[in-house]
């Protein structure tokens, strides 16, 4: 088995006054796709924030390749090789598509490879090349999501977290985007999917974690998990 890339141990985190994550652990190995499944308010987004540096966890530890990264600011994590696609295809609406992508290669490490990375993103999403000089605020929801994904890839990451990627998108668009995610993974990228969509998550990922009320209640190989069991765990039945 390949090495463990990221390991989260017994994370507790509050979202405002609300204890959103209450002792969640998971790990991901190099080259894997894992999914973190849960309903709205199950604590998965807060867990991602606590790992991604935008929210300091109350307790617990996070390791990236055996380096402790707990509470490290986001900009340092990006430099280490972690990248995130924020929920809802959040783009810099007043900037062009190209500038959005360029912002993805902000870290000094990524700047050197900017032109290469840009080529790769354009290969992956040809439509972004066509719209390179358009203001991103004028794009459709699916295209925005592509910008957000492309932008996350620009930092030459080893690990990418996709937060609720299918939220608010049409089924055909979601299907396209998931195809691209598998393609990205085949090229060697390690991926965390944070999803509400049980079926699609299981189909795409190697392993899955199901969250309920801030805790991981079920985990295992996605191919071995029965959809029924996952749904039960998901709703806490």
């Amino acid at each position, binding site marked *: 088995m390949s090495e463990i890339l990221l390991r989260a141990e017994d994370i507790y985190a509050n979202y405002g006054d609300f204890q959103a994550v209450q002792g969640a652990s998971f790990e991901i190995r190099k080259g894997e796709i894992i999914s973190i499944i849960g309903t709205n308010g199950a604590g998965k987004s807060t867990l991602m924030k606590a790992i*991604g*540096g*935008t929210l300091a966890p109350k307790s617990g530890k996070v390791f990236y390749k055996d380096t402790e990264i707990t509470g490290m*600011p*986001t*900009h340092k994590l*990006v*430099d280490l090789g972690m*990248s*995130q696609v*924020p929920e809802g295809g*959040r*783009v*810099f*609406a*007043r*900037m062009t598509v190209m*500038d959005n992508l*360029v*912002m*993805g290669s*902000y*870290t000094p490490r*990524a*700047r050197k490879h900017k032109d290469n990375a840009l080529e790769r993103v354009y290969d992956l999403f040809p439509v972004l090349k066509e719209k390179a000089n358009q203001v991103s605020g004028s794009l459709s929801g699916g295209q925005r999501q592509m910008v957000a994904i492309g*932008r*996350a890839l620009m*930092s030459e990451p080893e690990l990418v977290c996709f937060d609720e990627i299918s939220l608010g998108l049409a089924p055909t668009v979601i299907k396209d985007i998931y195809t691209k995610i598998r393609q990205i993974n085949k090229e060697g990228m390690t991926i965390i999917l944070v999803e509400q969509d049980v079926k699609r998550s299981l189909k795409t990922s190697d392993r899955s974690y199901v969250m309920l009320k801030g805790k991981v209640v079920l985990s295992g190989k996605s191919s071995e998990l029965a959809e029924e069991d996952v749904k039960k765990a998901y709703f806490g039945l």
Partner: protein
Amino acid sequence: MDALLQSLIQGVLLGGLYALIGIGMSLIFGIVKLTNLAHGDFLILASYISYSVVAATGMNPFVSLIVVIPVMFAIGYIVQNTMLNRVISKGAEPPLLVTFGISIVIQNLLLYYYTADARNLRSPIATKSIIITDGIRIPYIYLIGFLVGIIVIVALGFYFRHTYQGKAIKAAADDREVAQLMGVNIKSIYGIAMGISMTTAAIAGVLVGMIYNFYPTSGSAYLVIAFAVVVIGGMGSTYGTLAAGILFGLAQVMGAHFFGASAQLLTGYVVLLIMLIFRPQGLFQR
């Protein structure tokens, strides 16, 4: 007729300087979402620093900028990082009160060290003019102010479009959280934005000091100008600021032309109030 033309020219030229006075405040409003009530006082602080440098070394006020700009940049960076970053997420009032507190401290520090006497940064160029006709003459110093204002604004436009740092500042203005995900250190980038704002204040402060007398309390007058320019141009818009500066300069000079010199200030206030009441989003924004 000549007098009117002279006023028009003066208004336009003054407008370039006004845009320079307002651009820093506009940037901070657009990026950090902060109204810096001490902007005018920082500008006058720069005038006084230049005054001291000139007094100590005898250099031309323009040359003193090589000292004044780094000092003002550092002040901006430090003030943002030690004070303003702590309060920007705490609602509207605390940041307003902190910048207001800073304004009081700067004014009184200046009063303490430099007394209430009028100062200026006059250099030989201040009295020379380009004579076009008998009635129309363009003072060099106004022309310089206008050109420098335009150069600074164009340079800023270039910086925001073509550098990583400039783009990062724009991205942070658009979506602070996502900019962080890109690896932008938001606190530091806000500090840099304030440093840039203070750089423009430094240049404006030196120019203003070369044209007018200044006192420790002069900052308020420049805050009004900065604010008017920001409101007319629309918050955070670089070229809108330039157009707004020229419009406001023209409005003031025309006020003085038709209603007498004492009306210049009042015209400015009235124009600003009308804008605030009827078009707070600025003339150039939909």
